[in-house]
């Protein structure tokens, strides 16, 4: 720094050399006394408000989570609902034995009602069926057991008729005198008897059977094994 620049700083410093008035400190204290609550107090207030809001949100979330997600609706029967009702299902012969009275009472009746179709479905999947006034009596039977369905179908078998295929009778001996070419389709298939030799295990140190009788050594091994098993 040269002298000229120092002179410049001194000149600025001299212009800025002022002292605060005697009432400066008193003015600061007076304004501090008139200050609103401190920032910490305001922060505490905000924290309390935020905590209360968080608690309220948690309670609301718990209430919503515990509520049933699907509320059955009250359905007013009308023409569209009547058209949506499926046609009555004719019960199979023998099926009523499975569909007991309790299940029969679940059939669609004259009054609109909420019914659940299906046994294994979760409770949320509900089918709301509304029907207008129908004819008296069970018009639809819901068969829920597959075994009962199969039994009912089997009881209908005599009415339909089942043909049991039997093998054709043997030809007469007189016909055997006349040689006829065998029918490749009708002729029985003759399968010769299949002979399977017993499986034997040869030990490595067993004597080799003589070349003329290959089974001699095998018999000896079997005899040895049977004797060892008796021991």
């Amino acid at each position, binding site marked *: 720094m040269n002298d000229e620049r120092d002179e410049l700083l001194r000149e600025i410093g001299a212009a*800025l050399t002022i002292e605060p008035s005697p009432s400066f400190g008193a003015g600061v204290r007076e304004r501090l006394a008139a200050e609103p609550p401190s920032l910490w107090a305001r922060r505490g207030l905000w924290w309390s408000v935020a905590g209360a809001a968080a608690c309220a949100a948690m309670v609301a979330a718990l209430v919503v989570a515990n509520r049933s997600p699907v509320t059955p609706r009250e359905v007013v029967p009308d023409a569209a609902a009547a058209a949506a009702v499926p046609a009555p299902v004719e019960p199979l012969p023998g099926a009523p034995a499975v569909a007991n009275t309790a299940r029969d009472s679940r059939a669609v009746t004259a009054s609109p009602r909420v019914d659940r179709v299906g046994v294994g479905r979760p409770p949320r999947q509900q089918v709301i069926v509304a029907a207008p006034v129908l004819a008296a009596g069970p018009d639809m039977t819901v068969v829920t057991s597959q075994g009962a369905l199969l039994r009912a179908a089997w009881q209908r078998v005599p009415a339909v008729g089942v043909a049991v295929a039997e093998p054709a009778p043997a030809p007469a001996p007189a016909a055997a005198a006349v040689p006829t070419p065998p029918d490749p389709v009708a002729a029985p298939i003759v399968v010769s008897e299949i002979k399977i030799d017993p499986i034997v295990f040869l030990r490595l140190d067993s004597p080799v059977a003589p070349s003329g009788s290959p089974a001699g050594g095998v018999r000896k091994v079997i005899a040895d094994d049977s004797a060892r098993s008796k021991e």
Partner: protein
Amino acid sequence: MNEYAERLAGPLVTVGEEAAREFEARLADSAALAVRVAYGVLRQRQDAEDVAQEAFIRAHRAFASLRDREKFRAWLVRMTWRIALDWKRGQRRRTTREQIVAIASATFTDGEAEAIATDRSARLWAAIDVLPEKLRVVIVLAAIEGHGLKDVGALLDLPEGTVKSRLFDARKKLQELLQ
């Protein structure tokens, strides 16, 4: 019960009283600095004191993190400068600036010398007002209380080299403007 409450509240009251004493000490120590910094921007005594008081009020709100003396002075200087700039922007249109209070307040026996000094100071402050803000704050702080580069760097939280460079640029521009 009352004895226990008094024993429990005793340290708290002591901490509050201690903080109040510390703030009083900072107020007595840094009041002149704050007023001069504000005056360097506003050059009007009453406005400078109002700005400095506002800076102390804000410092009191944040005093929990400003217990250290150097940290307090640096924070106070920056806050005072910022408030003074805002004040100046707000007052610019409706307040006639007080010109050259310090020099004008000096006693001049010779009317011609007084006129020369007043003219010189007016030109100087006009030149300072033209400076960019980052140069102006450096040269004002360097002129106050004989602050060195290190002190100005601590007040502005700037490296000493940066302060030196800015002070050099400020002086150079002032010389050009004053010639």
